[in-house]
């Protein structure tokens, strides 16, 4: 995603322009295809937003404008509680996974050591295995761990927000590592050498040179971790306990029954949050 936005104007000059006579037909076809595909991508989202303001109680038809569903949403304690839980989980897991991921990225980029390639594989694995496999593995693990804890200490634990946070950190770390490593790779190490030549010690070099330069990468990684946690449904479904509800799980259990305008409204708000986050992450990375 990061490299995708790096525009190189010099190279684009050599690209054949669509307007060049012989390319017109394929150019028109490509443009039409693109327009249709963007419509395909956005029409459902637009419809969702529009129908969060409809008076229709089934939320599938336009019968006039109303804010009623948003008002109901705010008064729906269950959904509000679930939203707060989701935000809390996302905050905690983002902070922990960003710190751990940044440390790992520094170790993997800056050191050569035995077992490095094995650790590399372990870091990529959470990205490439399907979420449901990770979800059932963590469910089995937590059940077994709770049994052991009961045997040893006599204390009986249950799945809760804590188990969800632990799981979210486990899958977010890898994504943070990937993003931070990219910014470490693009980093001019001569800056650090220059600082060392000028007499700065390691700690000072890190905080005054390295950290500020990789900060956009760290923030980018943190925003990705935050989004992943907010959006995660599968792991949350398997790992949240009976008493603790998370927003995507609530939405899922409602949506399975029917479309409601209230869900349209909460979906619209989630959409707004996602757009804010992607704008933030893009502007952070543009600053590099």
């Amino acid at each position: 995603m990061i490299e995708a936005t790096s525009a190189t104007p010099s190279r684009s000059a050599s690209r054949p322009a669509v307007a060049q006579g012989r390319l017109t037909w394929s150019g028109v076809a490509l443009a039409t295809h693109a327009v249709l595909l963007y419509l395909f991508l956005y029409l459902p989202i637009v419809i969702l937003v529009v129908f969060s303001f409809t008076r229709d109680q089934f939320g599938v038809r336009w019968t006039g404008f109303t804010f009623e569903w948003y008002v109901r949403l705010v008064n729906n304690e269950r959904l509000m509680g679930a939203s707060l839980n989701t935000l809390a989980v996302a905050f905690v897991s983002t902070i922990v996974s960003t710190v751990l991921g940044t440390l790992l990225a520094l170790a993997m980029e800056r050191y050569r050591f035995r077992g490095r390639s094995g650790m590399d594989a372990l870091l990529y694995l959470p990205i490439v295995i399907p979420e449901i496999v990770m979800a059932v593995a963590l469910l089995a693990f937590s059940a077994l761990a709770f049994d052991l804890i009961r045997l040893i200490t006599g204390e009986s634990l249950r799945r809760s927000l804590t188990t969800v946070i632990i799981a979210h950190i486990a899958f977010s770390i890898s994504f943070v590592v990937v993003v931070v490593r990219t910014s470490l790779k693009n980093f001019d190490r001569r800056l650090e050498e220059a600082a060392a030549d000028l007499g700065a010690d390691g700690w000072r070099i890190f905080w005054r040179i390295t950290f500020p330069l990789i900060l956009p990468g760290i923030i980018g990684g943190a925003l990705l971790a935050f989004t992943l946690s907010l959006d995660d449904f599968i792991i949350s479904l398997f790992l949240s306990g009976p008493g603790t509800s998370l927003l995507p799980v609530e939405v899922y259990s409602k949506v399975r029954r029917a479309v409601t305008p209230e869900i349209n409204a909460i979906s619209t708000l989630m959409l707004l949050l996602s757009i804010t986050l992607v704008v933030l992450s893009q502007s952070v990375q543009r600053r590099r």
Partner: protein
Amino acid sequence: MALNTLEQEQRRRARWRLAALLTPGMLWLVLFFALPLVIILIYSVMTNGPRGNIVWRFTVGNYYDLFTRSVYVNAYLRSIWISVLTTLICLLLGYPLALFIVRQPPRWRTVLLFLVLIPFWTNFLVRIYAWQIILANNGLINSTLAGLGLPRLNLLNTEGATLLGLVYGELPFMVLPLYAALDRFDFTLMEAAADLGASRPRAFWRVMLPMTMPGVAAGAVLVFIPTIGQFVVSELLGGAKVDYIGNLIQRLFLRSNPPNWPLGSAMAMVMMLVLLALILLYFRSTTEEDR
């Protein structure tokens, strides 16, 4: 001598620093990622008790069932089939789009790419749900049809709706790596191919496609992985009429009474092994050029 000890001291410090950087994250991943995988690997060769408890008795019966009972075999085949189909459709739709974006002037390119990024960052569940509004029996399409005096169509809760939802959901994951690959591609090579007498289709097949293959492979992996394990789309849009492997795993762990964790674990293991094989293949195909 003094220099020697200084060097040793420095090396010792570097080792400590490395340990401090690695230990917390690795510990977390080993404890909360690798160990859980080992546990379901062990569960997958254990026996399921009558109350859904784990009986610690070795068996290969779970794997035997997976490969012999048609319910499970069909679920695997169905999952692989719909994943292949989704990946192919995303590729066919995504490649021309990525090509279009790359050929725009830089300012437009940023905007167009941003429009692909938004769905990429948007909650999957929400985006799938949006299609329910459109496809439902009293939904947008059917109420429009009714308004025109035409008969209603049964759109929701079909396998077609599942495929549609999967393509819709995964398309951004295909477009982004394709864009990155096409952005690196030197388009003057196409002109060179034309100068040497190659027709445009031939230049595409022999020059552009091979050179953007890492992007195609990355996109395919990114689309294939979530699709093979999905159960949400087939429940919300497909109406859970047919079972994909994800639906079976979810049911065996969460909904069945009694649950069957050993069988569910075996299913997850087989799914993971199939995927890892594919991904190794992918890494092999890209090592020469890209890494």
